[in-house]
């Protein structure tokens, strides 16, 4: 047997070594995504300058825009310029707001989205774990099966359908919560929006957490803990939950993409500023530098979060490491 500290150290080393794979794949994913944005605009039929300026634009304006975006140069040169721009975080200025670098727009939008998503992950994880515990523990007797059914129903309810309905009932009709798009809504508006975003996550965490806890319930050490006089709460929270936390981290990581999609829907619903609103506005106005910067930056964040989750998972359970 290894001692605890050297075992932990081996875990950290293994986790960083196994992070080499994710790092490489993160780089590949980002490059593929960035190239997709780049080439879909330039290879597919249709003139980007017409997309930006509209059909009725004068030829002189078009030529000027093409020169400004570098569209008049050979494709290989454009691509090289684009990749260098990504590496130095400089894709040029926004088209709709001249003089403002595209990446500065992205940085400004990052804060509100990070707040929304961060609070949602926290709420979703806590709520999901609580529901999972209630669904396996003895507190509800046979009725705990209802919690399981509730989790299944919540997981199957689409955010894009229930968020507007809940908002209509709670914020417009009953006026129990402020509309999160309202600048004065403050923390309670953020809490309401994050709460909506957290519900699908909580349902997934609850389902997987319940299965993981039930798997632990077959192990003898829980019986030992109970025989030594531990209360059910202590048995499940102190003894079973830490062992079951691996799958819970994995499910949070796999839900991050869906979470980003949900954040975009909510930003649109509440007209909140953020990455989603920035991308949608850039798409509508054909602000190509901002669109490219925002898509690549969000892809980078997504890949980063996935990598972090896989490192945490490896630390929690180093057995699966090569």
């Amino acid at each position: 047997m290894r001692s605890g500290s050297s075992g932990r150290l081996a875990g950290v080393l293994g986790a960083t070594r196994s992070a080499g794979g994710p790092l490489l794949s993160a780089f590949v994913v980002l490059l593929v995504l960035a190239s997709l944005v780049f080439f879909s605009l330039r290879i597919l039929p249709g003139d980007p300058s017409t997309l930006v300026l509209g059909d009725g634009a004068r030829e002189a304006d078009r030529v000027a825009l093409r020169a400004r975006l570098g569209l008049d140069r050979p494709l290989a040169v454009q691509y090289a310029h684009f990749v260098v721009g990504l590496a130095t975080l400089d894709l040029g200025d926004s088209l709709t707001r001249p003089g403002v670098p595209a990446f500065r727009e992205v940085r400004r939008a990052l804060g509100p989205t990070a707040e929304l998503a961060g609070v949602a992950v926290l709420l979703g994880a806590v709520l999901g774990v609580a529901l999972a515990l209630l669904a396996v523990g003895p507190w509800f007797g046979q009725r705990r099966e209802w919690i399981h059914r509730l989790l299944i129903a919540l997981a199957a309810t689409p955010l894009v359908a229930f968020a507007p309905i809940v908002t209509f009932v709670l914020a417009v009709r009953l006026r129990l919560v402020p509309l999160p798009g309202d600048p004065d809504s403050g923390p309670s508006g953020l809490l309401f929006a994050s709460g909506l975003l957290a519900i699908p996550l909580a349902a997934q965490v609850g389902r997987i957490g319940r299965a993981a806890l039930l798997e632990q319930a077959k192990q003898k050490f829980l019986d030992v803990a109970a025989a030594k006089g531990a209360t059910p709460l202590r048995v499940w929270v102190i003894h079973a939950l830490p062992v079951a936390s691996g799958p819970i981290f994995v499910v949070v990581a796999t839900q991050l993409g869906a979470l980003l999609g949900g954040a975009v829907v909510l930003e649109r619903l509440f007209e909140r500023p953020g990455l989603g609103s920035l991308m949608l506005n850039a798409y509508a106005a054909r602000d190509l530098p901002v669109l490219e910067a925002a898509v690549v930056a969000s892809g980078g964040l997504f890949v980063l979060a996935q990598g972090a989750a896989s490192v945490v998972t490896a630390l929690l359970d180093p057995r699966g490491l090569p």
Partner: protein
Amino acid sequence: MSREGAVRRRALAALVPLTVVFLLSAGAVLGSDRSPTRLALRLSWAAPTAARPFGSGDAGIDVLAVVSHATLSALGLAAVVSVFGFVVGTPLGTSAALRGGAVERFTLRAADLVQAFPTFLLALAVLSAVKQPTRVHLAGLFALSSWAPFARLSLVQARAIAGAPFVEAARALGATETRVVFDHVLPNVLAPVAVQLGTAAAGVVLGETALGFVGLGPADGVSLGVLLEQGTAGMIRAPHVLVAGAAAVIAVSASLQTASEGLRRWATREG
């Protein structure tokens, strides 16, 4: 009554909600000359009446017509995309599992990444080249990632089967590798993987709805997401639009989930 019969009856019962949703919307589309795009400014945001049971939306569109046409087209899109994913992903996953080694690991990792990747980002990256997406663009977009769950599932399934005693026996009896794949491995992979069709279809419906909601819907506006967006904009004046849109989305997605759960029970012979 035999257990097998009971299992089959329950699986068929799980298909009932999907059939009802399909028949209702097909009936509303074929059985009347309602147009989902005809405007009637006079009826803007009007409440439900006998002539228009779901009421009217922005600029007086007939909400019932939009709901039925959009539901049908969402189901059609979902069917095309999920069958495409099944047809492409299953051979991919199966052959990767039989090849083993680095090919298998790479396929698994790629499938995981594609599956978890935000559709929305992919949509912006691909759709930025067109003025307003059409259904063909949307189908192409969802097809880009539709193979991943099928490849992943068939890979895991094929890996389990490739080591099974009956496959080894076939090899020992002198069966060629092609014969092993087509006669012994694929038939046992197909059923469990096909179960994924319902989940994949539900994912496409919700993805299309979410894209429509944020303004990346089809140009003609006949989409449940576009209707939801309209309902949100008019929720104070005319909540019936929002309620009709949300109910339709929930009905379609829940009926697809129920069907896929029924298929799963049938495929695993679970009562």
